[in-house]
């Protein structure tokens, strides 16, 4: 358990008031104590909680601490708003001897970039961004690979050939998930249809619940989500439908509904980067790791999933690992029938990072 004052100070406003004092004093003390240890800082955008984006990063942080023990000293700052506050916190960490700083939210990119310029000897790692400098690297995961496999399960388990997707914001990462899921489902079930409902929020359990209920009311019998709470899984459980969770295994929130979850795993990456820092070989990377790097996986499939489906999914997983299966392998056709990727080709990373279309079979128009 961390005895860090920040993990108990959850309110951003209170934190702003107390933050400067606490950071200043605790960091001063910290520098005095341990000069030889590598000091590693983590900055999270939300509370750690029990499931979700930040929770998965924190699980990685725990693996890191377990691996290196006394050799490193880790500080976690959670619920840090993006923007000016992130910049201040990053700067204070850097100025008090934190040589490696991981920031795990997209909106930290520019603040970290700014701070990185003034601390050339400190190494910064930003999750999900796209800018790098001599001392700022970035890392992200190919969540869409897990989505493709999850889509195969959904496509096999639906009885009414109708899937439902609760989505947050129409950005490329979310669209990669939606399209990969649909393509995975279509690969096992060509008759599949899918409705997408946008809640325009990463986190609002009430709205997520309403969106999931709506999809179920409209006939979807397998629901998945790209939002942060467990509300969609709970909705599926109550209405006796299936759900595929995101970020974390959420099986305890829907013991009959939960088929699997697309999960994130950052521990190995954190260990590798800290090791390279200790070895003096750290370089700013731009990593987009997938299933083969262990950064994306599926939670154990529930007993409701038949054995032959499990076998099929495992086989596809092996193929994604060895590179013989690409979720966006051609032909990829968008809703209007336009061919995005020709047969025989794979969609490029660059094209994927700018994704702005629905694949064929998804109902409705993409909000732009």
């Amino acid at each position, binding site marked *: 358990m961390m005895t860090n004052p920040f993990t108990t100070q959850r309110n951003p406003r209170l934190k702003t008031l107390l933050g400067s004092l606490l950071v200043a004093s605790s960091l001063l003390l910290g520098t005095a104590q341990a000069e030889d240890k590598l000091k590693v800082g983590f900055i999270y955008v939300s509370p750690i909680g029990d499931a979700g984006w930040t929770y998965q990063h924190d699980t990685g942080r725990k693996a890191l601490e377990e691996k290196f023990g006394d050799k490193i000293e880790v500080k976690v700052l959670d619920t840090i708003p993006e923007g000016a506050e992130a910049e201040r916190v990053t700067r204070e960490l850097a100025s008090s001897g934190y040589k490696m700083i991981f920031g795990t939210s997209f909106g930290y990119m520019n603040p970290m970039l700014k701070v990185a310029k003034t601390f050339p000897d400190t190494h910064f790692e930003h999750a999900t961004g796209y800018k790098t400098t001599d001392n700022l690297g970035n890392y992200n995961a190919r969540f869409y690979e897990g989505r493709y496999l999850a889509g195969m399960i959904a496509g096999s388990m639906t009885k009414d050939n109708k899937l439902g997707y609760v989505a947050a914001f129409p950005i490329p990462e979310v669209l990669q998930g939606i399209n990969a899921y649909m393509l995975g489902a279509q690969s096992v079930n060509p008759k599949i249809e899918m409705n997408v409902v946008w809640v325009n929020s990463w986190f609002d359990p009430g709205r997520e619940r309403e*969106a999931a209920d709506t999809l179920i009311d409209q006939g979807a019998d397998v629901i998945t989500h790209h939002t942060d709470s467990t509300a969609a899984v709970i909705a599926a459980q109550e209405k006796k439908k299936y759900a595929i969770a995101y970020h974390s295994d959420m099986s305890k929130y829907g013991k009959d509904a939960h088929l699997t979850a697309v999960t994130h795993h950052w521990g190995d990456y954190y260990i590798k980067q800290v090791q390279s820092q200790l070895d003096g070989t750290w370089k700013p990377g731009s990593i987009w790791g997938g299933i083969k790097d262990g950064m994306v996986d599926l939670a154990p499939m529930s007993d409701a999933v038949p054995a032959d489906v499990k076998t099929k999914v495992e086989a596809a997983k092996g193929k994604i690992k060895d590179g013989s299966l690409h979720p966006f392998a051609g032909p990829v056709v968008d809703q209007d029938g336009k061919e995005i990727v020709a047969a025989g080709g794979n969609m490029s990373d660059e094209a994927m990072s700018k994704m702005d279309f629905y694949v064929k079979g998804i109902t409705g128009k993409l909000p732009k």
Partner: protein
Amino acid sequence: MNADTVILILVATITAGVPLIFAALGELVVEKSGVLNLGVEGMMIVGAISGFMVAAESGQLWLGVLAGAGAGMLMALIFAFITLTLMANQVATGLALTIFGIGLSAYMGQAYSSVALEGIKSLHISLLSDLPVLGQLLFSYDPLVYLALLLFPLLVWFLYHSRGGLIVRAIGESPTSAHALGYPVIRIRYLAVLFGGAMAGIGGAYLSLAYTPLWSEGMTAGRGWIALALVVFATWRPGRVLLGAFLFGGVTIAQFHVQGLGVDIPSQFLSMLPYLATIAVLVLISRNAKTIRLNAPASLGQAFHREVH
């Protein structure tokens, strides 16, 4: 859109409106007594976590609802003490109460974000619930929904047809006159604020125990503010508060259905609609400035001091 879909939307609308009904009707009584408590969001979220904690520990969902009401009342008591006894500024205190409540609930809830709870179930009344159309429309909700719907006529009766309600309204209009007539202004305002707190607490507990049976930080997501706004836009009339709550819930649900059906309207625009529609309708029905002035409690937000007056 077929008849089934319409029924589904109506059913979802009723439940979506319930947390707003509790919180807003509670606040209505508070404001009718001349007190403005902007801490509804804070009381709601503390009600949500307190209800969830007690239900998770005791296994008794209804004890959780009571705890939510109690926690909302305790929060309201803090507010009442600061504004009514110490006569601090109501706006500032209410805002502080919300900030405090959000922080406190996060602190209280640290160990509970992992707890899975079987929420309050919908009733199933044999025969009645199985009726076609009507069964689903009228007899398929959880008990708190009926409680919210029962609260409305009770409140109307209390405010407009009982002596107690007359006193509350008189105090809201002119605490000085009410005091001169011998009514205990401060005591009655205390009671009104505590009632408002209990209602906000139940509204919060409805979210964490029935609507989305889970605890996560910030889960009320601004519903307390919407409830506050409803009271003002409804020009302090209970019927319009009810209408506003259903309208807000209804447009929210309807916009999800519109999206799900694949209608070509940007979802960001649709997300804005519940707010826009609620404000527009409530403004339209209350566009007569005179009635607004007549309905707004004249002493709203002002401190009352016995000796001065």
